[in-house]
């Protein structure tokens, strides 16, 4: 049951030619895709905000970002629904399909394409880090390949579900079903940092490179031995370039502070691969 109706959205943001609900309701946010003429936009509404200060800070920072690698925020504010007020974020709609769709459709990208994809994704994560934004929920569903091109990944779904993470979410981090790409510190209910995003990129890269998640095999819930699995480090097939394997090993270091920053990752990959 949605807490915000199409009428509420239009009352706050003006009329749309089309306005349709999309995506899963994570428990913290609700999403809509609207169209005005040829312009399509995504509206995300935070209906359970546990840390208002952080939402405001990060959305303000995100709105200042103007990058082809990160979804562009068009505006943000609040929507009043009866006696309540919810923050919202309006962003561009990026066509091209999510990374998980492309991974499932195959074939996997060749080494050169994977290199281009990874560098662009890391540059996007670096831009977020520079703006002091932590995504906290990077996963294939949250990356769009612009126009279906592996060389142009776009990070989406910022400023919503994971901006509310420090109370109930971090106590039960796997409750929302996104644990397979979460860094150990997130699964330990500690604060996520930009290096948690680097971990997620490493896991995504390992999965693309090998065709399988490096730690999990589709378990419905987080396995009891998750900590031991993550401490063991990811495996990447020897058929992929050594530079990629080396970077994944570093970037998926169990200890966050030992992982390379996004900028250092880009440098390392450009120099060695």
């Amino acid at each position, binding site marked *: 049951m949605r807490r915000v109706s199409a009428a509420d959205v239009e009352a706050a943001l003006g009329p749309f030619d089309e306005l349709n609900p999309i995506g899963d309701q994570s428990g913290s946010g609700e999403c809509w895709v609207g169209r005005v003429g040829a312009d399509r936009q995504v509206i995300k509404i935070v209906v359970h905000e546990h840390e208002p200060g952080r939402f405001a800070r990060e959305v303000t920072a995100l709105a200042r970002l103007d990058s082809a690698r990160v979804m562009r925020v068009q505006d943000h504010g609040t929507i009043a629904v009866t006696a309540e007020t919810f923050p919202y974020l309006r962003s561009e709609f990026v066509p091209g399909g999510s990374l998980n769709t492309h991974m499932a459709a195959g074939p996997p990208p060749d080494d050169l394409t994977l290199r281009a994809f990874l560098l662009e994704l890391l540059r996007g994560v670096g831009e977020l880090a520079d703006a002091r934004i932590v995504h906290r929920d990077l996963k294939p569903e949250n990356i769009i390949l612009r126009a279906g091109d592996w060389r142009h990944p776009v990070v989406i779904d910022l400023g919503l579900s994971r901006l509310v993470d420090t109370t109930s979410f971090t106590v039960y981090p796997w409750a929302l079903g996104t644990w397979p790409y979460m860094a150990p510190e997130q699964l330990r209910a500690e604060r996520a940092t930009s290096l948690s995003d680097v971990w997620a990129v490493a896991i995504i890269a390992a999965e693309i490179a090998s065709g399988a998640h490096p730690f999990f095999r589709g378990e419905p819930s987080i396995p009891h031995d998750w900590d031991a699995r993550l401490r063991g480090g990811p495996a990447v097939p020897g058929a992929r370039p050594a530079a990629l394997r080396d970077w994944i090993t570093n970037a998926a270091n169990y200890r*966050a*502070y030992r992982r390379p920053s996004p900028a250092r990752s880009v440098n390392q990959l450009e120099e060695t691969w």
Partner: protein
Amino acid sequence: MSIENGFWLQYASQNADDLVDLADDLADNGYRPGIVFAPVGNPARLCQLYGRMRAEGEAFLDPSGFLLDRDGRQQRATNYPWLDPTYGRPDDLDAWTEWMEQSLQHQLSRGFRGGADEPSILVTPSPQLLASSGTAELYTIVDAASAARDSTEGTRECWLGIAVDRDYLRNNARLTELADTVVTAGFPGVVFRCFQSELSPISDRRLLEGLRELVEGCTGADVPIFLPNAGWVGWLAGAWGAHGHSGGLSKGSWFDRMPTPMRNPGRRDSIFEPQLLRHVHWTLHEQLFNEDGYEECSCDSCVTMDGDFDAVEAKIHQIRVAHARSNELRPLNVIGRRRAIRARIDAAVDFRDDLPRTLQDRADARFLDTWLSLV
């Protein structure tokens, strides 16, 4: 932009007037060390010394926020408002932010610097964080530091100040959270203190291993880490990539130690023995002097003493040695520094092991084995 790496002079209320002249003197034999000032003593004298120092070299104020958690003196309330013991300990993000803003504004104020340039860096104050209290306060302090930094006008870099108890470094879970937080906090550098209970030299292996992990983590992430009052542990940490450390003319400025009773009060006639990397009693120094393999120190202070103990010259001798060691390391990269420091410790172990058993026992330099294993 960053601050000079290597050894810095540490300001304390004792012998403070001599520090600037000492910096001038040291500059004749290498680089000019900066001075880490502290909010203690007479503020007018501090302001005057800062002005003299800043005219020639680098200096900053370590706001020493941990003093909030110690017995306060009324003078702090008047001159250093963030250390006012009647202020009350902040208990939420906004209150901590305001507390830090007071300190940053003081560092930029005419009351601190007179007409001199702004400090080489600003430093956010940190209370003493206790591992037993969990990491919520660590997160709050770092968030408050970010907010205070963002709201403070100034042309200088602002580094993150962090002060912890020793369990933060000895407990793997706390250490990981600390390192993760410090490395990703988004500050251009960190001024870090860890309080412990040991007199120098520190031989607590778990504490040193934790410090190594933190320093290497910061260095690997290109976040310079400075260790005020760390003395020779600061020099050791240079092997792991520490940017700098400080020590001064006050005995307490060589090791961050919890305010506990001294185990050997009254033994003032000691001198730093470069070949053992520790202080020894003057009578033992005289015995070592006659041993094979002993290398006589040729620093100006030792020349001045000429075999007769002098308390002030003995203090300056230690500073001259620290400065000389830093001069050796400054041109080297991290790998080169590690090799050079290891070579120094190796030589100290050899010297110790060649001593007669009775002198070995008296010198008590077993800590060298721990240090050697860590570099």
